[in-house]
């Protein structure tokens, strides 16, 4: 069994429980043991807007806690993936940042070597675990589904820091979906941002941004949208807000990749937290046997 540390970040731990449930359920089935990073905190993403050093410090502190328990770290959140990857990059290239943070860590008896590898769920599953291992584990192929994927921004850009997939033509999430037996489509707005980092500053209007993709996919006609970030998920799944703010008849199932994976591995929908999705996921589950 392969084991690695898992860093959840704020959104999953405090509200996006279905992402956590579905990852915790499915990974052992694929021979992966997740070890929680204890006493972790926010990844530092929010602090980017107010204090760059503090943001890097928070990220490195989390990484040093992870390095105590594993050589590899998995984070399921796009925002956390960028924060942690960027901080690791700074740690490696900026001598002054490194020595300042090292001394702050010492006060807590923490030590960071900087040798940890940071994965997002998408490149971990696609590159490290591999498509074959996933498709071999499928007991309930999702043959009837035509799905769109939303890779999100922070596993693609800035491409000199994060390189989970090709920044202009990301295909990994699509290939992961196809490994479960479903079909994926290409669509013009695939690279569009969900608007999520604006959610707290613009609690209503930020949904205008996510509405665009949902309405586009409704026009194209797909069985659902597959997401791999808790913030993107919230922006697309909250379709009561999308309808109120942007008009339209948004009614598109939105699922986490790990939920879809769980269905293909034979888990029951509620075990994967599908009852917690607010979008009409029964439209999707009714097309497959589960």
């Amino acid at each position, binding site marked *: 069994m392969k084991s690695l540390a898992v860093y959840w970040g*704020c*959104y999953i*731990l*405090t*509200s996006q*429980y279905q992402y*956590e*449930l579905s990852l*915790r359920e499915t990974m052992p089935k694929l021979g992966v043991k997740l070890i*929680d990073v*204890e*006493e*972790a*905190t*926010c990844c530092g993403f*929010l*602090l*980017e*807007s*107010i*204090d*760059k050093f*503090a943001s890097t*410090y*928070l990220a490195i*502190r989390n990484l040093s806690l992870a390095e105590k328990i594993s050589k590899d770290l998995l984070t399921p959140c796009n925002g956390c993936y960028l924060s942690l990857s960027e901080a690791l990059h700074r740690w490696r290239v900026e001598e002054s940042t490194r020595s300042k943070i090292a001394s*702050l860590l010492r*006060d*807590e008896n923490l030590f960071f070597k900087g040798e940890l590898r940071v994965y997002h769920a998408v490149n971990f599953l696609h590159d490290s675990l591999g498509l074959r291992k996933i498709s071999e584990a499928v007991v309930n192929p999702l043959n009837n589904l035509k799905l769109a994927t939303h890779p999100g*921004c*922070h596993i693609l*850009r*800035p*491409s000199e820091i994060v390189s989970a997939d090709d*920044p202009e033509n990301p295909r990994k999430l699509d290939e992961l979906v196809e490994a479960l037996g479903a079909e994926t489509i290409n669509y013009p707005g695939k*690279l*569009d*941002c969900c*608007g*999520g*980092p*604006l959610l*707290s*500053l*613009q*609690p209503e*209007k*930020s949904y*205008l*941004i996510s509405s665009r993709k949902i309405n586009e996919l409704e026009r194209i006609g797909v069985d659902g949208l597959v997401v791999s970030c808790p913030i993107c998920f919230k922006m697309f799944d909250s379709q009561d807000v999308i309808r109120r703010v942007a008009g339209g008849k948004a009614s598109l199932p939105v699922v986490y990749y790990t939920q879809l994976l769980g269905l293909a591995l034979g888990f029951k929908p509620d075990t994967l*937290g599908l*009852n*917690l*999705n*607010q979008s*009409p996921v029964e439209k999707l589950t009714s097309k497959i046997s589960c």
Partner: protein
Amino acid sequence: MSLTDLMSSSKAVKDLKIKIKRLAEKNFDYCFICGKCTGGCTSISYFRLEPHKVVNMAKLGLVNELLTSDVLWVCTQCHKCAERCPQKVSPYDLIMLLRREAFKSGLKRPTPILLGVRNILKNGFILDEQTVFSRDLDEFNRETLSLPGIPKPSEKFLKKLSDFLGLGEGK
């Protein structure tokens, strides 16, 4: 000689431009106004954010106007402008730098950001643990979903972070 923006009558402040330019990791003077950043900006249609204008106002030294402007705070942090700029300018990095300067100087401190920071200083995360609802309106939380509790970081660490951010009592 100073430059005056004829539309707003604002005056360029050379010292501020020099300061921002020194802090910026990428040189925004290289911008040749191709407009690619604004063409692909996530926030242009709903929030009228035009990153090439931010870059060129900084270039002209109209930094005060930027520091007090709301446009800095409607960027979705999608990084598209930085990725696609042929001159490696990164309007995104400039916007974040200006946000930090606006915040530090107290010119703009948006409440949602302050609340997030307060929360980090309280329990380590930007949010508190929430009760969620299923589509059938049943209530769930971590405990009822059999998810492990979230360990709180040590008081010592939180205190250190708070001193460090200079956002303690009254600030």
